[in-house]
């Protein structure tokens, strides 16, 4: 399976001998070690540090279908270089647009997406409840929100419930992390106000990019979404899909990192009225997140081991089937 490469150190990526050459810079800006990355083994690149590159490189990456995702110093996703679409399907495009423009059809999908997200996040809470954490009240509250979902009459309303569910969920966050020194308060972004918020922002962002990468390998158009408003600024279909996978990929990674003390207060830096992950923390996070994406589960219907990364793609396929009216979309629900 092709690998994702994460670039943290500043350096220069160039095309040489029909493959990729990466030269890291050391502190003085002089050339450090070079390494060749086999182009046939590169799935995509995540750029966190500063990267020098020229158009010849991007042409080359484009030809090999490698996308590059960029993140700024403050850990926000800033954009992607996407290779030319190679799986074009006009019929699906039309169907996807149709499902967006028809409020009735859109509502169905939006509801399913939130249902999936809520189910998976309840799964997290129940797991910790069985371990003796006091989250019963929040679980009951979220269940109430889920129960009213079928009666929602507009996507905006569903988005509202989604917001409420998340808010209730985040209230438990502090409880689930058994390490002192990590307060949560409320969810804050741009910039995150404390350590947990910083981890969440960073994780969500990785999750969006992971979803986008998978969407790219299907015929779906990443800009037309159903739950979030499509079109502007972002590849919003990735946001839709990420809802389902955030509890499994991001939250569980965070709980593991903190409860096993793999990330500690010293991995953060407080500055400019916000809290950010230091490079050491980011690297640890990325490593564990990557492990999680590669982790496999036994898939019931396919009857074989499937990685979380592939699950995202399967979700895209299910969506495709729904759009083409082959089979109704059922969001992924963790069954273990």
């Amino acid at each position, binding site marked *: 399976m092709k*690998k*994702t*490469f994460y*670039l943290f150190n500043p350096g220069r990526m160039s095309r040489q001998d029909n*493959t990729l050459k990466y030269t890291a810079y050391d502190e003085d800006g002089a050339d450090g070690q070079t390494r*060749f990355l086999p182009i*046939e*083994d590169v799935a995509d690149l995540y750029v966190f540090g500063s990267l020098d590159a020229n158009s010849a490189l991007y042409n080359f990456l484009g030809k090999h279908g490698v996308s590059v995702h960029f993140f700024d110093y403050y850990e926000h996703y800033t954009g992607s270089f996407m290779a030319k679409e190679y799986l074009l399907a006009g019929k699906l495009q039309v169907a996807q647009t149709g499902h967006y423009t028809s409020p009735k059809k859109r509502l169905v999908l939006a509801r399913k997406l939130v249902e999936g997200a809520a189910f998976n996040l309840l799964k997290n809470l129940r797991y910790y409840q069985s371990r003796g954490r006091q989250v019963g009240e929040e679980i009951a509250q979220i269940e109430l929100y889920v129960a009213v979902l079928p009666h929602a009459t507009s996507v905006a309303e569903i988005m509202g419930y989604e917001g409420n569910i998340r808010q209730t969920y985040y209230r438990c966050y502090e409880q689930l992390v058994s390490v002192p020194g990590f307060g949560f308060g409320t969810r804050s972004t741009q910039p995150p106000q404390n350590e947990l918020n910083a981890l969440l922002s960073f994780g969500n962002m990785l999750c969006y990019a992971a979803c986008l990468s998978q969407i790219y390998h299907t015929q779906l158009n990443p800009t037309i979404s159903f739950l979030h408003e499509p079109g502007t600024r972002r590849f919003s279909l990735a946001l839709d899909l990420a809802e389902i996978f955030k509890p499994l990929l991001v939250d569980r990674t965070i709980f593991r990192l903190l409860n096993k003390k793999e990330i500690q207060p010293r991995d953060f830096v407080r500055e400019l009225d916000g809290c950010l992950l230091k490079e050491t923390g980011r690297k640890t996070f990325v490593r564990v997140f990557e492990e999680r994406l590669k982790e496999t589960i036994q898939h019931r219907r396919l009857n074989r081991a499937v990685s979380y990364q592939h699950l995202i793609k399967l979700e895209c396929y299910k969506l495709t089937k729904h759009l083409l009216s082959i089979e109704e979309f059922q969001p992924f629900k963790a069954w273990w």
Partner: protein
Amino acid sequence: MYIILVYDVKQQRVGRMLKLCRRYLHWIQNSVFEGEISEVKLAELLSKARALLDEEEDSVILFKSRTQQWLEKQVLGRERSRLDNIL
């Protein structure tokens, strides 16, 4: 499939062989490569290598392993190149 590929080719062909292998596998030391590769990509690599080789003089040796897990790797001295994906 996880493979280790080593080659021994005449000097005039070494450069071309190196460049070819770099596109598919991770270089670990002179004329030794390793990495995860699919059946199809391996067939592609081997057919390109075959075109390059003089079968009287040169050789390419492959060690195959089902996954990286079954490979125990030990390094003495300086490791020339790391293989991780966080740069």
